[in-house]
């Protein structure tokens, strides 16, 4: 099987895997990075949302070969040591999570949105398709707005 080398949360890794193995399973089953969650496997629920070179992707449909030579960031890589990312801080302030299973994906989607759109409107937030089966959407919305404030304060 071929080898693919890329970084995960700043750490260089090499995995031995078929080219078409979804990145999600390379992360979870081969590298033990379990923050990105399986929820559908077909880029619908977005629970696995992570970043590839800073862009939001869904590793359940990204072949591991596509990650070669690139930087993968998962929820585990968002904080700077013990210092949480402003989106994570906003999430704690708003107490968004219920079961928590979709939250890594929600947060990574929110980080990507705020990078593109520092002051998102409700319509911008509506465009996030991540499923939260606990129905925490309103708090997700409030947390994104709060994170925008926190990030605006620099």
């Amino acid at each position, binding site marked *: 099987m071929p080898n693919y080398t890329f970084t995960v949360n700043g750490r260089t890794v090499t995995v031995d895997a078929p080219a078409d193995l979804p990145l999600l399973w390379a992360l979870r089953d081969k590298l033990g990075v379990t*923050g990105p969650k399986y929820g*559908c496997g077909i880029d619908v629920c977005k629970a696995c949302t992570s970043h590839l070179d800073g862009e939001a992707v869904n590793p359940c449909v990204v072949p591991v070969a596509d990650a070669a030579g690139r930087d993968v960031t998962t929820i585990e890589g968002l904080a700077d040591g013990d210092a949480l990312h402003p989106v994570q801080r906003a999430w704690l302030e708003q107490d968004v*999570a*219920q079961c928590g299973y979709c939250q890594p994906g929600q947060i990574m989607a929110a980080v990507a949105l705020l990078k593109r759109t520092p002051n998102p409107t409700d319509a911008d937030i509506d465009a996030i398709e*991540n499923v939260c*089966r606990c129905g925490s959407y309103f708090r997700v*919305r409030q947390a994104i707005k709060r994170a925008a404030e926190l990030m605006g304060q620099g």
Partner: protein
Amino acid sequence: MASPALNRRRFLTFLVAAPTLSIGVTMATEATDAEAAIPTLPAPADLLDLGDILILAGTPTANMLVLTIESDGSATLQLPREEVGQGITTATAMLVAEELGIELDRVKVKLDDARPELLFNQLTGGSNTIRSVYGPVRHAAAAARTRLIAAAAQRWGTSTQGLTTRDGLVVGLDGLTESFAALTGAAAKADLKTAAPTLKAEADFTVVGTPTSRIDARAMVTGAQRYTLDLDVPGALPTMVRRPPTINGTVKAIANAAAVRAMPGVVDIATVETGVAVAAETFGQARDAVEALQVTWNAGTVDGESDASIKQKLRAAALPFVVPPLLTQYVDAEFDFAFVSHAPLETNSAIADVRADRAEIWAGLKSPIVAQQTIAAELGLPQDSVKVHVVQGGGSFGRRLFFDSALEAARISKAMKRPVKLMWSRVDDMRHGRARAASHHKLRATVALGNVLTFEHRVASVETDFRHGLGEILTAMAASLPVAGNLGFAQTVFLTTIKSPYNFGITTQLLNEVPLRMHTGSWRSVYSANTRGAEEIFVDEIARKLGRDPVAFRRAFLKTARQRAVLDKVVTEGGWGKALPAGFAQGVGFHDEYKSCTACLVTIDARDTTKPRVVSAVIAADYGRPINPRGLESQLLGGLSDAISTTLRAGLHIDRGLPLEGSYSQFHYARQKDTPTDVKIFIMPATGEPGGAGELGVPAAVGAIANAYARATGVKPRSFPIIFPVDFEPFPR
């Protein structure tokens, strides 16, 4: 109305032999006059609801929960319940922090493994956790506090008089302090003389009743929270199952087993009762192998059934009304509700390591004792040779009352003779997992002179499966149930959960079930979401018939001031009756269950009747004694999203023995764009003991949304979800 039997509950605490202070607590009920405890009128659920039954069934259980003061002075509560997002670990930690006098972040809550000695006291359901542990947790913590204080007094050579605890310290009169860490050994000594523990007065609470964030929130936002599939059990291989083309179909033959076995990463294949399992090095490879399998199948149990045939059976099964529509004016309505997947984001999953003489299971389980018993019987092992670990779950909504994946993982592990990490695909979960049973509702009210004389509701439902231990509890409690005769489990659950909050004269609510062998299960409110939801829609229609405003009508007929208070709260805060643009409308709903009550007022934008959106919501709820108002708001927010989903767009179509929906692209659970941008939630002040929380929010919101839709569009909704086309290409069977 509280049950007298429950008011007489008391709790015995005892010292558990351990090097550090460890307090067990058992519930004991004082001798009561059984006849007096179980009145027979007015409606069973008014007197003794399902939650009360679960509490009473758990009453004789010794050592129900254990609180330990660790050598570092922190506290650990072992909780025989399952956390799935509802916030019970946070709420119980708050109870400990309050009563013990310790910081919340120094209280850990561990979910107990299956403990068969707990009998009926390890079932997480019926919105029952806080109601059942509110007393015991506080008594355990009070006993621990009393012993820590006694140990400090002994050390200081003083009396215990005036000694208190705060922030993990015992505080003396002259400013002396000693940490719990330094006292826990001495406090654990059996010969320590202590005063009788006394509970903190509820009026003095500073933690309980204060909005508090989840104790596991940081783990959740950093990816550190571990769910079943995140556990590292050595050697447990990723495993998936190829499932039949119809519900409960079985494997006839595999045409290409050798070829699939030779696929990259595939380690083993085994046929089990539910399909063909493949273990592989990664889930990606297991999925590829499962899809490559060529399997022929035996028929399932409902191959001939589709939505139309099921609806026909339900309509035929609805029991007749008693009151004929003669002489008086009357209102009739019929409603249909589709099957609804629980669809927790974490699909059914489990880890099993089955050996010749023992087995170990890890899964999100709300009925772990029944899981343990069933798996032991299946494996031919003694029950105590099967260790069942309860893992925090990624959502449940009733689903994890069942242990389908744990049982299946055990079978696969036994067949493959290796540990397996089993994951159901989303398609598996939606098509072969559990669902809320489809139901048909017939309602009739007779009215005269502005009054409602009779109110009848006949529910016909596909059978809801209660084979997760609730049946055994009801059997054991049969003598105490407030229902007469030899009712089945379903009828008992129905009658102990469904009641009308209104003075509508002679009221009868009856269930009749259609036994179809499908995978059903309680779905956030056992029967209430659709049964009480339908009634709230019907209440609007009765009001219209009588020419009354929906709010004024409800106010006039609600039974108690407490109920009217939550309704008034949403009416005031939501500006009931304010002018809205064409296509927009408000709707209101009310619900009372498990000693709690709630009202919901929504505004809907139905300018495009095929794309309605709830744009704002105001909710008020009275829980008797809110432990964590912030967590309760979460539960109400979730209930609102559930109601938006199941009322407007989310359901399952059954086609020739199988749901067509296979993922969230087809089962339209609400997304961000479907939910309101303005939500206000009000938790009413404490008035008594805690009522149920998890299930309360759905029915009132179902009523409010449907009523708003009717007022905005002029169309009376009769079938739910309202917008329900097959707007997708189904996945192959």
